[in-house]
Structures are given as C-alpha cells and as structure tokens.
C-alpha cells in the first residue's frame, strides 16, 4: 500500500513540476485581482458574481480598460464604448439617444453600467436581451446604428497592433486574438466599475448625516402609501437601488417599444423594461429607457400623477386611474433630495476608470 502511495506521489510531483515549468516558459502569469467592494456592499450584498471561466486578473482588466476606450472597435475608428458610457456621466450618456458612427441615433437611452457584478439575475440591457455580460459586450460593435463594425475586422485591427498583441498574451496567454477574448477582457473591466461612495452610503456607515429633507424623502421612498419605490428600486438594505428585474411603470397606453416582450415574444411582457439603478441620478439624465424625461422632477411627476394604464402595467403602480399617488409638493421635493443623495461624485474621477490609451 505504501509503495502505491509513493508511486502516486511521485507521479504528482512530476506533474506539478512540469506545470510550473510550462507556465514559466510561456511567461503567462496573470495576477488575480478582486473587485474593490465598497464597505456597505460587503455588509449587505452577496459576493460579486464572477463567472468561473472569466476570473478577474490585473492583465485582463487593463486590457479591457484599453478596449473600452478604444475607438478602433468602430468601423471608422471614431467611437468607443466610452463614447456612449461616459465616466463623467455615470457611465451613461446625457443625450437622449446616443448617436452611432453614421450619425444615426438609437432608440433607447444609454444604460448606466456600474455595479454590474451584482446583477444576480444575469439579464442585461433594458430589454434583457443578453444573458451574460460577455454576451452583452459583443453586440454594440456589430450594431448597425452603433459601431457598425464586424468582429472579424476588429480582431484583424487588434492583431496588427503589437501593443494589443502583448496585452492579450499577458491577459490570456494566447498570441491569437479573438472576439471571445476581447469580450472577456471588456467584461472584466466593466465588472470593476463600482459605485458605492454616495452621501447615503456614508450615512449608512455612520459617516454622514442626512438633512431633514433627505430623511423625509427616504420616508416617502419607503412609504407604501406614498412613493412605494422600494419594491423595484431597493432600499437601505439593497444599496444597488434596483431589483434588476423588469417592469411596466405606466409610461404608455400603447407601446412603440415592446422591451422585454420583444425578446421573449410573451404578450405579458410587452412594455416591460429593466429597473435602472437610482445611483448617480445627478449625472445620468435623461431618464427612462427612452430618455423621455429630462429632469428628476418630471420623473417624480410621472409616478405621482402621470401613470397611464396598459395591459401589462405593474400591479405595484398605485391609483392608476387617477394617474398615481398624488404626492404633495413637499413630498416631491423631499423625495428628490433623497434621490440625489444616492449620487457618487467619486465615480467620474476614479483613476482606474480613465482612458489609458
């Protein structure tokens, strides 16, 4: 028996020693990195969702960051991901519709892409059309009204750039660039985009004090009879400020955009869109999936007296026949003040999120 064990042990030693040598020979030693998890997230939320086949590495994140700001992803070298997901605009776009390389505008507002690593539902985009982040990042490159390129062209462009060759080799140990590896790198970087340093975060940590108006706004937000915002948009217990789920919030009687229903074909899901996070509203105007509201006041007015009935309206919408819950002017002002306390001014200037190219 001992002999057998010794024999197995020797085989193991050989296998392990060979593995080490191989890695050293390839010069492929990516350094694992962790997402910088805000303190309040550590207290309240699950661990970030990192796919087992795409762990974060220092080299992968750096490559992803370079690609995120790389205009050569577009057909005419004019538009990068950051062109429509701007760091100083909450990684969204303050234009109602982003404009692609051919001067054509899209039909939905650019969705903010922070705290994606906590999207436990794994449904991405306003309409849930992507089932993973790695899948999501592939689409804008080939979208005809966005970057209007082909992945074959992008891969060829990157393959001819010695700088990118080195970055891909360092990140993935492969001299061959592929769209799958590019998607992995982009996803790694996007998962590092974390916003968790708002005044309200600091309040929860006992490091800041809310004004009386902000406190009253929180009460409106959490009051089932007034705002009832918490069912879809989180609460002090859910600092994502979204449920990452899909709802029809009473915008239209008739739909010109079916949202989730356009993807699933299910009439029960016509007009449903993903709840966006309420973080960084100070920087992410305009609002709603189609950017129809320019101001937060308009958003609050909509829920207060602008709701309209449609067959799929969410049952959580209150007194729809009267347009909504009819908030007082005082409640509206307080709610707005509270919502703005969820904005994180440190996001835009985080040096790890800036253009490295």
């Amino acid at each position, binding site marked *: 028996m*001992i002999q057998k*064990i*010794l024999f*197995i*042990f020797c085989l193991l030693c050989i296998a392990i020693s060979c593995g080490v040598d191989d890695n050293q020979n390839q010069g492929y030693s990516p350094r694992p990195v962790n997402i910088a998890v805000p303190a309040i997230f550590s*207290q*309240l*939320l*699950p661990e970030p969702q990192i796919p087992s086949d795409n762990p974060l590495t220092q080299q992968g994140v750096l490559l992803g960051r370079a690609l995120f700001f790389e205009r050569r992803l577009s057909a005419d070298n004019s538009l990068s991901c950051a062109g429509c997901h701007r760091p100083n605009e909450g990684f969204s776009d303050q234009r109602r519709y982003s404009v692609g390389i051919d001067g054509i505008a899209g039909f939905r507002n650019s969705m903010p892409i922070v705290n994606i690593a*906590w999207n*436990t*539902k794994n449904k991405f985009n306003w309409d849930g059309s992507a089932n993973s982040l790695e899948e999501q990042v592939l689409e804008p490159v080939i979208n005809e009204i966005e970057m209007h390129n082909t992945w074959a062209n992008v891969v060829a462009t990157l393959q001819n750039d010695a700088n990118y060759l080195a970055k891909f080799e360092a990140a993935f140990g492969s001299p061959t660039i592929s769209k799958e590896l590019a998607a992995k790198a982009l996803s790694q970087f996007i998962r590092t985009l974390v916003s968790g340093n708002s005044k309200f975060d600091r309040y929860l940590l006992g490091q800041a004090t809310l004004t009386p108006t902000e406190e009253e706004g929180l*009460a409106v937000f*959490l*009051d*089932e*009879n007034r705002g009832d915002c*918490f*069912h*879809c*948009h*989180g*609460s*002090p*217990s*859910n600092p*994502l400020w*979204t*449920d*990452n*789920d899909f709802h029809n919030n009473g915008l239209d009687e008739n739909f010109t955009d079916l949202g989730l229903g356009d993807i699933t074909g299910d*009439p*029960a899901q016509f007009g449903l869109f993903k709840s966006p996070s309420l973080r960084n509203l100070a920087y992410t105007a305009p609002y709603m999936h189609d950017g129809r509201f320019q101001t937060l006041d308009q958003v609050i007015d909509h829920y207060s007296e602008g709701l309209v*009935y449609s*067959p*799929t*309206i*969410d*049952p*959580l*919408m*209150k007194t*729809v026949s009267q347009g909504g819950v009819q908030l007082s002017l005082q409640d509206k002002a307080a709610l707005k003040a509270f919502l703005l306390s969820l904005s994180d001014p440190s996001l835009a200037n985080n040096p790890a999120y800036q253009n490295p190219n």
Partner: protein
Amino acid sequence: MFKKAAFLVLLVLPFVACDKNDDDQAQQNTPVSIGFLHSFYEDEVSVSSNTIQYTNGFGTSLSITRLRYLISQVSFTNQDGIKTIVKDYHLVDLSQDNSLTINDILLPPGAYNLKMRFGFTEATNTSSVYPDLNAVSWNVPENLGGGYHYMQLEGRWLDPGDSPDEPYLYAYHTISAVQNPGPENTREDTSIEIDLGEITVTQGATQINVNMHIDQWFENPNLWNLSELNGLLMGNYTAQKMMQENGQNVFSLASNMSD
C-alpha cells in the same frame, strides 16, 4: 528529499484512511429533491401570465403575473426524533425555473416527517442579514416592521360585470403583521409552520413535490374581497392576520416518488 517525501506521504495517509468511511457514508445517503408546484383549484399554475383565467372563492376573476414566496427551516425528522434542517431558507419565484426545486439534499433512506415554514420566524426575520435576499429587494422597510417579505402574489382582477378592458390591480403581499406603521411600530410573527406529514426516502433518488393551493389564499377561512383588499396590505395589520389564517391550508404534499 526522503524526509520531504515521507512528510507528504503522512499527509496523504489520513485521506486514504478516510476513504472507506466516506464510501460507507456515501452509500448511506441518497439524494432528495423538493419541488414546488402551484395550482388554482384544478388548474396547474406553471408560469405567470397576464390572462385573467382563474376565479376565486369570492367569484372574482384574476390573473397571476407574479408569485414569489419564502420558505424556511426545511427539516426532516427521522423515526428516532432526530431533526435535520436541510435548508435555512429558500426563495421560490415562479418566473425562475431554478428556484422551483431544492436540490443537494442528502439523507439516509428511511421514513421522515417533513416540515417547513412559510416566511421567517420572528427570531430569524432580522433586517438586512440575508445578502441574496437583499440583492433582489425582498426586504420590508423598517417603518413597516423590517425583516423580509413572506410572499408577493400579484396580478389583475375583475368582478362580474366589470369592463374587461381595464382590469384592476392587486398586490397580495404577506409580511409580519405590523401595528402602528412608522418609527414606533410593533410587529407580530405571521409565519406559518407547514407539516407535510410522513415521507419516505428510498435508496436512489427521491423526489418530493409540495403544492401551493393558491386559491386557498382567497377563501379559507376568510373569503377575500379584492375590491376592498387589493393593495397597501403591508401596513394593514388586520389583513396580514387574515392572510396568515388563510395560509394555514395552502400547502400540501403532492407526491413522494423514488427512482
């Protein structure tokens, strides 16, 4: 070198020595799954739908667009009275197929009493302590007693004679019953123990199915009038107590099958 090898051999030996016991344990335990089924009287409810296709005991027609509920303290008690809690809590969501089954249960074959609880007990219904539930906004605000929801059952409804063009909405949400909603509220445990009786775990795979009779939420013992109680129920102490009463006979053992 010999010393290193001997040291590593000593490290390996305990694992090898444990193999036989592990094998015995593996032979003793058998996989058990608990599935959650849903019905409205005779109709199976397998997906949320916008179609108003069910009629409750009050005579109101309704749809079910959303159903989520929390089960906790899933336990198997064997013939010797030894209780094994196999799952502390589990969120069932009709729209998420992977939530409709509790897997990864391993038990020795035998007869058991199966129990679970609808919602959290007062002792376990502590605000913010379950990260996965926080992330899906399952919380109850502190002004409404804090802790977590027990159930969110939502949809549309129509009484006879109502125009079908614009049905009304309902949000039948169950939580701890709370008195004096606001900063000075007090809350009362309205979770429900579910005793599913005796089940048998046999060698091989065992599948247990539990059925929620959704219709019971609307009629037994309190006939539910949706025109009066269709929303804003979280802060309604009386409604929460009525829902707790109606929930007593909502769950039953549907099947206990073995491969």
